[in-house]
């Protein structure tokens, strides 16, 4: 089974390495780079004592909740819902633009977002037309910039999933509700959304997991700065490992991320298998 060897060496390998490495004092350069010593829980003690860690954890939660759970998910649903009733050409074109932002290579998306929020960027041009003046948003409001950028980049996924799911809602149920006198809002909240509960659950999980691991967008736009003001966990781990040279400490952060990711994955699989059992 070549697949198993490949997985074992390059996927399971790093995970095991991550757990072992986080108990050593490995560094990027110097003697400890080649022959690290066992230091037990020292990295985790340092992690808990480091004021940057809770900050980074908090920023990761803010980033994930605002850009994925609220932004991409809700906006994606609304776009998909609007698509079912809007003019078909408008729906196709708007959907196409949203998808392009998602299909672009992440580094290009990151540059585009960087240009958009920079001092002479498009956002400030727009603000200038209504008489407002903005500074360098990447510096003054880094979290807002990366959250909006990630909504721009990632909404397509939720939109596509919800569009397909909305297409499968039986129209007779909606019509029955309409005959019973339900308003549009009631039809949406009492019929459509409950029917899509399973889809909403899985989409939320997937979007959350993807957002937890966003690195390139943030790294190119703000590099976690100014200071640590936008350093989510992946950026924080990278900085500690490669800029400050402590591979082991970065590895400890990676292990924490893996545990968070694993918890969400298990939750996701449980939702899926329950949905399967219901069927």
């Amino acid at each position, binding site marked *: 089974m070549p697949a198993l060897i490949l997985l074992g060496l390059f996927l399971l390998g*790093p995970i095991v390495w991550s757990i072992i*490495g986080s108990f050593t004092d490995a560094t990027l350069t110097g003697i400890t780079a080649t022959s690290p010593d066992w230091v037990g829980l020292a990295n985790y003690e340092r992690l808990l004592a480091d004021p940057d860690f809770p900050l980074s954890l908090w920023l990761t939660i803010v980033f994930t909740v605002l850009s994925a759970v609220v932004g991409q998910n809700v906006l994606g649903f609304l776009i998909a819902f609007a698509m079912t009733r809007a003019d078909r050409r408008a729906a196709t074109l708007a959907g196409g633009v949203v998808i392009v932002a998602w299909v672009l*290579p992440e*580094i290009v998306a990151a540059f*585009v977002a960087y240009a958009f929020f920079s001092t002479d*960027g498009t956002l400030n041009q727009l603000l200038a037309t209504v008489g407002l003046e903005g500074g360098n948003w990447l510096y003054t409001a880094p979290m807002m910039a990366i959250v909006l950028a990630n909504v721009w980049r990632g909404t397509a996924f939720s939109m596509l999933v919800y569009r397909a799911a909305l297409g499968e809602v039986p129209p007779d149920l909606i019509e029955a509700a309409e005959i019973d006198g339900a308003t549009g809002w009631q039809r949406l909240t009492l019929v459509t959304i409950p029917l899509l509960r399973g889809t909403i659950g899985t989409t939320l999980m997937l979007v959350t997991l993807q957002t937890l691991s966003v690195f390139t967008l943030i790294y190119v736009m703000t590099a976690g700065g100014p200071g640590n003001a936008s350093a989510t966990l992946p950026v924080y*781990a990278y900085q500690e490992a490669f800029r400050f040279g402590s591979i082991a400490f970065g590895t400890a952060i990676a292990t924490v991320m893996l545990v968070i990711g694993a918890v969400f*994955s298990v939750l996701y699989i449980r939702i899926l298998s329950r949905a399967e059992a219901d069927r």
Partner: protein
Amino acid sequence: MTAVARPTEPAARRTTDRARRSPARPSVASPRGAVSRRLATAALVVVGLAFLLPLAWLLLAAFDGEASYQTRLPARLTLDNFTAVLTPQTTFQPLANSLLLSTATAAITVAAALLAAYPLSRYRSRFHRGVMYGVLFGTCLPITAIMVPVYGLFVALGLLDSMPGTILFLAASSLPMAVFMTKGFMDSVPLSLEEAAWIDGASAMRALRSVVVPLMRPGIAVVFVFVFLQAWGNFFAPFVLLLSPSKQPAATSIYTFFGQYGSIAYGQLAAFSLLYSIPVVMLYIVASRLIGGSFALAGSVKG
């Protein structure tokens, strides 16, 4: 993206679906329907414009001789930016590296995924159920989280700055998703054809190669394109694992370019980005046609 709008067979099928569903509501039945239709259209136009705005910079700056971060119509349209970046060192070498990296990754992943999906799809057992959950679990793990330990592992194995090493890592990280997709496509190949092959004396490998694979060619193409796109767009893995400039794929060479000349040559940066992005947008369109709708690729999650 007008290309997406042109109706093909599957697209046409979708529209009849919608035609069956929606006009029943807005038309004559209720005047409220027409209002909501107009509202929905207006909302979509606003959303479309908002999503287009950041992209407009990329398109306009690439053809602007004196581009900055401002979005504006170029004073004079020019291809200078393209001629400036279309040199072996800036564009061709990195794009060739990207092509090598992505093609090799996709080929290895597809081959391994076929072999792994075959028993999972054809035999039922408790063990396989566990494996499927394991595969699903693998698709969910945040790959960026493991880049630092992967770097450590690559140092220990002496694979740092090695193209084959990077390819194998990329292949392994996209394998769980590929197995999942391949199994889905394989499940729809009827078992009876293979049983006929078995009766004729074909081995399992032989049946896979000459019966199953030819039947699921479109599915394999989709998996290939999907893995290819992921590898093509991946920035973090080559950024960490490849060191020498001659091995850098376009994703990381753009970043270097940005660091060195980004503050001066916005137009060239935009031009290079376009050259690098257009293949994936085209491939995406091809793949979504192939599968009869843009949804199927979404089911297979990026990242």
